[in-house]
């Protein structure tokens, strides 16, 4: 099964982090990405720009409405994702627990609806 690991973290907290902390976190993500690739389970992964760069679009009555900002204002924001292919939820949960983001925020694990 494929699972999307959605990484949520506090952007404000990240911005106020020291340079050393950021470097350490980036190194941890580098090692994690290598490990997940090495295990042969990685399908795709990306880091997202901050939610302040987000635009939200809705179409109603034929009119396109664009709003500045993310869809939901929350304390923790979507910061990136890993898409993985593993046998079951236990495997997905153990990869989620290894993700450095799990120490700073939270990882939401969502099964992919295979088409």
């Amino acid at each position, binding site marked *: 099964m494929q699972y999307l690991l959605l990484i949520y973290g506090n952007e404000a907290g990240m911005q106020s982090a020291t340079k050393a902390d950021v470097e350490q976190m980036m190194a941890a993500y580098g090692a994690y990405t290598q490990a997940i690739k090495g295990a042969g389970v990685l399908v795709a992964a990306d880091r997202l720009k901050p939610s302040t760069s987000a635009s939200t679009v809705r179409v109603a009555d034929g009119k396109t409405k664009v709003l500045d900002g993310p869809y939901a204002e929350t304390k923790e924001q979507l910061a990136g994702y890993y898409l993985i292919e593993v046998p079951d939820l236990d495997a997905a949960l153990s990869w989620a627990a290894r993700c450095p983001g799990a120490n700073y925020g939270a990882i939401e694990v969502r*099964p992919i609806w295979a088409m």
Partner: protein
Amino acid sequence: MAREARATTEAVARRSYGKLVAFLAARIGDVEAAEDALSEAFAAALTDWEAGGIPDNPEAWLVTVARRRAVDAVRRRRSGEAAVPHLQLMAEELASTEDNASMPDHRLALMFACAHPAIDPGIRAPLILQTVLGFDAATIGSAFLVSPAAMGQRLARAKSKIRQAGIPFRVPERADLRERLAAVLEAIYAAFAEGWSDPDGTEIRRRDLAEEAIWLGRLVVSLLPDEPEAIGLLALMLHAEARRGARRNADGDYVPLTEQDPALWDAGLIAEAETLLLAASRMGKVDRYQLEAAVQSAHAVRRATGRADWAAIKRLYDALEEITGSPVVAINRAVAIAETDGPAAGLAALAALEVDGRLAEYQPYWAARAALLASAGDIDAADAAYEQAIGLERDPAVRRFLQHRRAAMRGAMN
């Protein structure tokens, strides 16, 4: 012939329902589809066996029919998903194991899937009762003090979560096993309690429940020989089972624990329970089930001394209340306090529980209150409490017992 077919399907359902659900669910990764397919297979068995005779291996026959129904149902349900490769895989997997003379037992794997950390903790035990033992939502609801409709919805949601999230059907790795054990033990105990409440075995589904729960308890202990709480639960169930024959008198009337004849208790089961409890206590991790088993042990002391060790029972309930915060434990603690410190002290302990609204419909609360009020001499209040307890009781023998107690109390007054 019709009667024979019905008797055989009922016997197979009693003997193998959970095993068949677990076998099918483990292979299709879907509890609900397994349950539905199996119930269709049982319905087909009733007519087919009546017409064509009972097959040599009824379980294998049921699995074959259920397999076909499951493939059909999953095809309908998964039309939007990648159905074809999944279905081929499923059909192959089912066919490859179907011919085995002895079906592998996946009940433990199914229990651990139901007790998975991704499942809401409150629904894990009910889910195990439904999938492994075939309880309906109404019976589970009454055991867990939840309405049948609400319980049915929560069960359906949990089964859908297992399927959609890809929760595996297997016994977890050793590290996770310990973590998930608590939910499994809770469900086994709830099953035991259900079977225990039906001593006459009047309902087919519940008749063997206590034995089934003990069987599950033994299975977990054999898998986890170093887990003291699993051993404690088994000891607790064996202690209670030992008294099965003493709970009714010759007229079929209910006999409360404190008035049972210890000579009727099963000495073999008590000895086994005591050995288990001793082994568990040496492992140095005392928790809920060992404490509850120790309460039973303190009651069993009456065989030798003529009186239960109420001081020990009160101390054990003190510890249990701290761990569980359960109102049911608190009621038993109040009864123990009444034995050691008198009925007034017991009533004071009960009064502290009245804020819990769930107790208003909980028979043992009213029965305990009635007995304590009666021994304190407050006959009018005791009479009202008996009225409540009798109205809430579902077991006719216990109802008769309460009616006799109430009548005897009033008779003593006149």
